[in-house]
Structures are given as C-alpha cells and as structure tokens.
C-alpha cells in the first residue's frame, strides 16, 4: 500500500513539474483569472456590482462554461503527450501498475485546477469586505466547482488516451463535456422526448447533466447524490482510460 501511494505521488509530482516547467501553467492561470474576473464583473444580465447582493453567484454561474474550454486544455496532454513522446513505454514498464499512473496523473491535474480555484480567493475576500455573504454557500459552491472540474478532467483524461494528437484530444474532450452540460437543457430534453416516448430515457440523459448536479452546490446544499454523481463520473472515466490504454497495448 505504501509503495502504491509512493508511486502515485511520484507520478503526480512529475506531472506537476511538467506543468510548471512549461508555459502551460502560467498561461492557464492567467487566462482563467482574467476570464473568470471578466465574466463575473462585466457580463450577464446582472454583473457583480449591479447585482446588489454580497454573493458570488455571478462568479459561479459562469464556471461550468469557462471550465468547458479550460479544463480540456489542462487535461488534453495527459496521455496523448506520453504516447507522442513514447515515454508511455518507459512509464508502463516501470514497476508500477497502470492504475497508479492514471490516478497519479489525474490527481496532479486536479490539484493544479484546485490551485487555480484557490487563486480566486480575493473574490471571496472582496464580497466579505463589501457585505456579509453566506460563506457556507460560497464554500459549498467551491466544493461543487472542484468536483465539476474533476469530472471534466476525467473526461479529458479519457479522450487524451484515445489519440496521440493533443488537438484532437482537446476537441473530443470539449464535445464530451459540452454533452455533459447540455444533457439537462430544455432543447435537448425536448428533442429527446420527441425521439422517444419513454420518459426514463429522457430523465436518464438529463440526470447526466453537470449543471443539474452543480445547482445544488450553488444553493449551498451538499447532496450525497450530487457527490456520488461527480465521483462516479470520475471513476468511470478513469476506468475507461485504463481500458483504452490496455487496448492500445494489446494491439
């Protein structure tokens, strides 16, 4: 057990070093902070200052869309780069299991996204200075964001295992995450109900939507079902990543 944790840590550490020794990390963090600030303060029916409430709703409402592009940008290289460089052959002939490598890489990127979220703390300080927001709701929303980022990231991890081309991996991942967002939107659910009369298929598709599950967190509700949704999305995607990687090697 100790060695497997050690292996996961070693893989994760390498991945993080990889982010910070290339411009990827800095470009990402800058873009994320600029865009999230821009959307929070400038865009929408009720931007931050006109909203008239000490809350971060305007910030969190945009995050699923911002993450739609930024998280695949973080995750697209995870396995495609390994395959392009051929280092996957080194990594998987080391005395570690494919699982440890998959989890290590995923955790490193997730930690990186957590850091990006952490850097938005000045927003929290600002609303606390301006008024007295419900910090419980804010905390809850952050937890939801982190889980959502993890879900998107696991999907990117999966798509990056499919191809050695990072651009293809990025596009597939955006499409996959977009589906996860749109599955619960009325146009999609209406379209699905036209296709089929079976209600449970429509409901099933709608329940795959991250938006539905993210809403609870935004209201400050930590629902076990939402938690299970995100964790199982992560688990399923990482498991599929493992299957795909094994498939490539089996030829």
């Amino acid at each position: 057990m100790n060695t497997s944790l050690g292996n996961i840590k070693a893989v994760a550490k390498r991945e993080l070093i990889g982010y910070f020794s290339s411009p990827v990390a800095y470009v990402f963090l800058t873009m994320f902070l600029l865009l999230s600030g821009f959307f929070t303060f400038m865009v929408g029916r009720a931007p931050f200052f006109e909203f008239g409430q000490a809350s971060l709703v305007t910030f969190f409402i945009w995050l699923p869309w911002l993450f739609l592009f930024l998280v695949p940008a973080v995750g697209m290289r995870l396995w495609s780069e390994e395959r392009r460089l051929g280092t996957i052959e080194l990594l998987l002939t080391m005395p570690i299991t494919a699982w440890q490598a998959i989890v290590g890489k995923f955790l490193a990127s997730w930690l990186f996204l957590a850091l990006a979220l952490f850097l938005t703390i000045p927003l929290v300080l600002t609303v606390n200075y301006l008024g007295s927001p419900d910090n419980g709701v804010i905390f809850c929303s952050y937890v939801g964001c982190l889980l959502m980022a993890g879900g998107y990231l696991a999907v990117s991890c999966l798509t990056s295992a499919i191809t050695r081309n990072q651009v293809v991996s990025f596009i597939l991942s955006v499409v996959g995450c977009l589906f996860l967002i749109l599955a619960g939107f009325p146009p999609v659910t209406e379209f699905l109900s036209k296709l089929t009369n079976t209600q449970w298929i429509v409901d099933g598709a709608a329940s795959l939507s991250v938006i539905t599950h993210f809403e609870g967190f935004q209201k400050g509700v930590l629902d076990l079902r939402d938690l299970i949704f995100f964790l199982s999305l992560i688990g399923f995607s990482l498991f599929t990543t493992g299957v795909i990687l094994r498939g490539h090697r089996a030829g």
Partner: protein
Amino acid sequence: MIRVQNLSKSFGPKLAVNGVSFTVDRGEVLGFLGPNGAGKSTTMRMITGFIPPSAGSVSIGEFDMVEQPIPAKRLIGYLPENAPAYTDMTVYGFLNFTAELRGMRGDDRKKAIHRVVEMCFLETVLYQSVETLSKGYRHRTCFAQSIIHDPEVLVLDEPTDGLDPNQKHEVRGLIKRMGEKKAIVFSTHILEEVEAACTRAIIIDRGQIVANGTPSELKQRSDVAGAVTLRAGGVNSTALGQKLSQLSSARKTTVLKEEAVSVTARVFPQPNCRNGELARGIYETAAREGWKIEELHTEEGRLDEVFRSITMPDTVRDDKK
C-alpha cells in the same frame, strides 16, 4: 534470468512475432538481429511487459511477466527504441523521477544518480532540459535511466542508434562489461556490434528465429568461411588457378583481382577439409613454384553475408539467381 517460450504476437491479421523461444542467463549478452520490421521491438516490448503476448510466456527470474508483472519489472532495466524521455524535465529531474519509481529513497537515490551520471558522461548537461539535448545526450540519458537501479536484466532496443563512433564504442564496452554480471538482450542493425559485445546472437526474420548461436558459429555459416585468400606476385592468374586446382583440399579457385605485379585469388576448401590444411597446401605450392606471397589468410566468414543470405526476401534471392 530471461526465459521466453513460444512467444507470439498478432496485430489484427498480421503475425508480428511467431513462436519465439530463447533463454538468457546471467553473464550472457544476447544480440538480437533482424531486418526492420522483423519483430525485434515487439519481442522486446513483450519481454518488458509493455504489451501482452498473444500466446506464449515470458518470465524474468522466477516471475512470470503476465502473472506477476510488478516483481518481474523490478528486475528489468529497459531502454526503449528511440530513447524516449520527458522533454519538459531536466536530466537530473528525469533520473530522479525514474529512481523514485524504482523505489529508491534519500541517499540511495542520490548515489545511484551520481553513479549513472558518471557512467554515461552526463555531468555537463545534468541541469539542462531534455528538450535541448543533442540526440547522443538524450540517448545516454535514457540509457542511464535503464541502469539506475543496477538491474539484473537489461533490455536495450538499439542502444547505439544515433551515437557517434566514439560513443558507440563506449556503449559497446559498457554493455560488455555489464554483461559479465547481468543478463542482457540488445537489438541492433550493426553487425560489428554483435561481434564486439555479444556472447550469443539470434537472427529473427518475419517474426521467427532463423539462426541462433555464438557470433563465430554464425560466421561459420558464411559461404566464405574457411576459404583462403591469397595475394601473390610472380605468377599469372591462369597458372595460379591451374596449380591450385590440383590441390586435394581445394574445391574451387576464383580470381578476385589481377594486377600487373600480383594476383589476388580465393580458394574454397573441400567440405571435409581440416582446419589449416588448405592454407598449408597453398603455401607449399607457392614455395615450390617460386610465387612471391604478399598475403595469405583463412577467412572466418562474414556476419553481414550470413545475415543477408538468411534474411533476404525470397523474391530478391530468386531475382539474383
């Protein structure tokens, strides 16, 4: 240490490796020869556990690669083809990472890194990013990675590819020295490498082993093996051919080159001719006839010729006929 039994691998309908079996013990260096696409890399990838075999088995030490991959992989050091390395790391960072995955901690790790850096002459680039390294340095970095845990089994896929002649010589020496205590398999296109570093060689073609033996055994299979090459003055080619064909130990004489002052010819022995008999016969004839011998030696056989004759596609061979 390495036991490969009936190993096969198919990619879709294509059989890349077909029933390959061999063993490599400690103290042996096995050269793996074959044309491009013969299945060398695929075999090595199965030995190191990167791809699972379609049939057959690989065991390293007492561990089966499919049943117990982790302890088996622990015994192996592997240099994959084209020496991949993480381009976004420094040489030190890369070696540190691989040592960590090999389970080395603290002082042990530092010592191990220091040792391989010295062995592979990486001091000057230690804190340089892998991306900026020349091909030779990158290759040596990846080679250093493969020996960092002083493994009992080394699998090297084209270890001298992309190195300059001095570095090639260095790496061959290193393989030979390490081969005294380890079981080593390495693949190569360069036949002189086999003679320089291997105790045994296997030639593989279209997924199957077509020859297996020590370098000198393989050379014996060459057409010219045992033939005597002679350069002599004071005689013309016709007379030389006539006299030599009278020798009981000679089967055939061919003139390779005729110059104003000397004739170069190759004499092929009779099948049951004893070692050295033909050369002695030629010398005695030359002494009797008063030829001035400038050169006289028995051919050991040439590996490249054996390699070509074994692995040449049938179509090419037929065309030549």
